[in-house]
């Protein structure tokens, strides 16, 4: 279409509008969905942005995506006459837009299915049903637990907890997200008297309580499960750990790799303790000549890579990010007066340790 001055005005095909809308709904992507309505959206005819340009190709579905049932169902919704009219009206409107609740609800459900929890909770919050949806997932989780469907129950609790909002966020409330890397540091900030009293060596009941409080977003979410019988809690935690960390096997493999070095470290420390006891070594000089560089490798092996910062807390934070539950099975270990590392430390008598395939460790000091 060309106007009197010879400029070509932009035309956006209805198909592009339908497909872009349906894709964002099928993907459960609230950011893209919202973006499609903004003043500079490439779907608007008065915008200079072009939906067919390569930079916006992510907004349109691939051929494979077009065949997915989720996309087809979203497209059917978008093609409904009243909905299509509303979309077109909003795309031509100046000023604040009004999103369609039907589309938002479908988007939120798809986001939950794909575990895009921040997107889901934002959409439910916009619809003002987030708190009730959270309750529905907790209630269904409780029913599944009673029926013995641990895996489904864990999924329900995990979804419910992940739909939490952080009302303390500034300046507006935002979806709450787990901060494992921060909580891990708090958990390992200090042990009561000795490293041996780390989380992995706690009595089962205390271990479960600590684990649920660490893995769930809020204490009230954790307390929904900590009042159940210990056997249920144990099964629940094993399943929860595997669902939170689908790459758990990788961490187990890393633990295996640390064992020879841990054995060497323990032997070395034991020898030094014996020499101190027999008066052949001053207590203040217990770490003299200890090959700290070599034992630093334990932290590296546990994480699976070397960090520029060799401090124990740097490794702990990274590990908490990559394998959140692993934090429950490690502790700090002194390898020099001012040098600490993180090493695997847990109690083989703990049924959770056995069922998570963690290997036996060299005897502790």
């Amino acid at each position: 279409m060309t106007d009197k001055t010879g400029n070509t005005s932009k035309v956006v095909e209805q198909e592009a509008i339908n497909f872009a809308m349906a894709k964002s709904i099928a993907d459960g992507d609230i950011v893209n969905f919202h973006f499609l309505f903004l003043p500079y959206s490439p779907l608007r005819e008065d915008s200079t942005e072009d939906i067919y340009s390569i930079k916006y190709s992510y907004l349109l579905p691939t051929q494979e995506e077009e065949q997915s049932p989720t996309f087809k169902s979203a497209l059917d919704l978008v093609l409904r006459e009243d909905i299509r009219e509303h979309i077109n009206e909003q795309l031509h409107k100046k000023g604040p837009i009004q999103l369609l609740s039907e589309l938002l609800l479908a988007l939120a459900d798809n986001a939950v299915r794909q575990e895009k929890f921040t997107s889901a909770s934002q959409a439910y919050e916009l619809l003002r049903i987030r708190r009730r949806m959270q309750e529905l997932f907790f209630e269904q989780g409780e029913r599944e637990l009673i029926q013995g469907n641990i895996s489904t129950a864990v999924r329900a609790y995990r979804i419910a907890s992940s739909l939490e909002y952080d009302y303390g966020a500034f300046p507006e409330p935002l979806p709450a997200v787990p901060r494992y890397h921060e909580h891990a540091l708090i958990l390992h900030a200090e042990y009561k008297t000795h490293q041996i009293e780390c989380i992995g060596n706690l009595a089962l009941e205390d271990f479960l309580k600590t684990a649920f409080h660490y893995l769930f977003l809020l204490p009230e979410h954790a307390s929904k499960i900590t009042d159940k019988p210990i056997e249920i809690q144990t099964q629940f935690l094993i399943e929860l750990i595997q669902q939170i960390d689908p790459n758990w096997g990788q961490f187990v493999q890393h633990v295996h790799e640390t064992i020879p070095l841990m054995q060497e470290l323990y032997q070395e420390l034991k020898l030094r303790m014996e020499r101190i006891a027999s008066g052949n070594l001053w207590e203040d000089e217990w770490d003299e000549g200890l090959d700290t560089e070599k034992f630093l490798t334990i932290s590296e092996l546990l994480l699976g890579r070397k960090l520029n910062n060799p401090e124990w807390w740097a490794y702990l934070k990274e590990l908490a990010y990559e394998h959140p539950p692993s934090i429950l099975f490690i502790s700090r270990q002194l390898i020099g007066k001012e040098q600490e590392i993180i090493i695997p430390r847990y109690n083989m008598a703990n049924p959770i340790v056995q069922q998570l395939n963690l290997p036996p460790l060299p005897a502790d000091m």
Partner: protein
Amino acid sequence: MDDETYINYFSILGLEENCKTGDVRKNYKKMMKDLILNIHSTEVTPDQLDQYLLAMAKLNAAFYILRDEVRRNAYVEHRKKVIQLEKQWCEVGENDPNSPEGDQLRREFDRVLRDFLTKYMEELVLEAGRDKECVETSNWDPYHERHASRVLRHYRQKQYSQIHERLPYYDVTKPTIDWGEREQAVKQILHAEKV
């Protein structure tokens, strides 16, 4: 409409709006004493700690605001205004939330509401914690204040969100939620293969 979501310091102290200053002091001292006894008689879990901190902060604020005539009148006025504005916005918004009048009312209400929540659910609550009489009665100290800032921000935003939930929809079309369908959707999501 639930007026209690706009913090009612009179009902926190179990008083009527026309109460005397003497009653404010008497009820505050009794309720604070009961609360402190309650805290010391049980084992406090981390989430209970926040609740107790909030309860203590609210009692301090109720006393601090209601015992002073100027602060008390300003609070009553502000609360009345925000409740009135909500009523007006709801009346207009139910029919045409995006009309110019509706838009203006919504913005005005939002501004007054945020001011109210900030002043009476955060600023004056923290100020009350530094008041000599409140400090003596509640043993409020800088440690409490540091934690209370976080708890109060959370509480204020949550109240804002709860108020927001009952207002007319304007940025989203009003949804028709069939809770039976939602229950089924939850089951279907849980039993379907993870995408």
